[in-house]
């Protein structure tokens, strides 16, 4: 028996298909991203970090000692997995997480005040620099938070928590009239 599986985004029913009016503070949700987890073998942590930094194509998120997430918006999950497996064949274990995680992109001048309602970590520009990333607790949900720009943050969350986190972010952003929508495909 063959079955057809349809790829659905967990927020499909909660967001309009057409992008609405974009407010100053905006929550942008890419429909698909390529995400793989990279776990360095014992004693190879430094060479894995160096190898990934040298490859330059992916953005690296810290999740724990020797454990990283590699995120790419341009590559497909298959090609990202293949490329990193070749690059780090002898030094790390690579597992595809693309269908298991959801990416939230927050941008706008009030983003830090918005995030402060759920995250207890210091997000001051001098403390949490551009490119910094870490696992943090947002409300009751563990997310991977990264600073991607001056006032831009990316949250990567487990797929099953995406709806709950989306609801939380909407409540947290109500004061700032946060708008939300899927990324416009280029």
């Amino acid at each position: 028996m063959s079955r057809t599986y349809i790829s659905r985004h967990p927020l499909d029913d909660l967001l309009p298909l057409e992008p609405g009016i974009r407010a100053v503070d905006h929550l942008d949700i890419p429909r698909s991203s390529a995400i793989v987890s990279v776990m360095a073998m014992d004693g190879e942590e430094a060479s894995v970090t160096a190898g990934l930094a040298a490859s330059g194509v992916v953005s690296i998120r810290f999740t724990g000692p020797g454990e990283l997430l590699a995120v790419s918006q341009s590559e497909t999950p298959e090609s990202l997995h293949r490329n990193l497996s070749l690059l780090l064949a002898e030094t790390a274990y690579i597992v595809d997480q693309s269908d298991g995680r959801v990416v939230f992109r927050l941008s706008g001048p009030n983003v830090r005040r918005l995030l402060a309602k759920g995250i207890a970590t210091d997000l001051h520009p001098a403390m949490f620099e551009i490119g910094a990333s870490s696992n943090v607790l947002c409300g009751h949900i563990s997310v991977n938070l990264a600073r991607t720009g001056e006032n831009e943050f990316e949250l990567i969350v487990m797929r099953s928590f995406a709806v709950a986190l989306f609801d939380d972010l909407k409540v947290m952003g109500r004061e700032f009239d946060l708008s939300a929508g899927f990324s416009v495909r280029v």
Partner: protein
Amino acid sequence: MASLIHCPHCGVRPKEEFSIRGDASLVRPDPEASDEAWNDYVHIRSNPRGRYREHWQHGAGCRRWLVVERDTFTHEVFSVTDAAIVKREGSR
């Protein structure tokens, strides 16, 4: 309770991100040890007023087990070390 823990991997974090397993100074007895030794190991705990070493897991962060040395009376935290490092140094 100490409300801010300085995780060696993630930096200063609130205690809500951690879960506590308990006393880190216990040593597992030999399998052939007496019932009394095993009873002590499994059930009997001291409840000190003062310095205490505990296993904490940073579940919402790096997910590593840490050994936290803190004061149960003054809430002061003396040291936080990755449990793997503590074990490696202990067996040396």
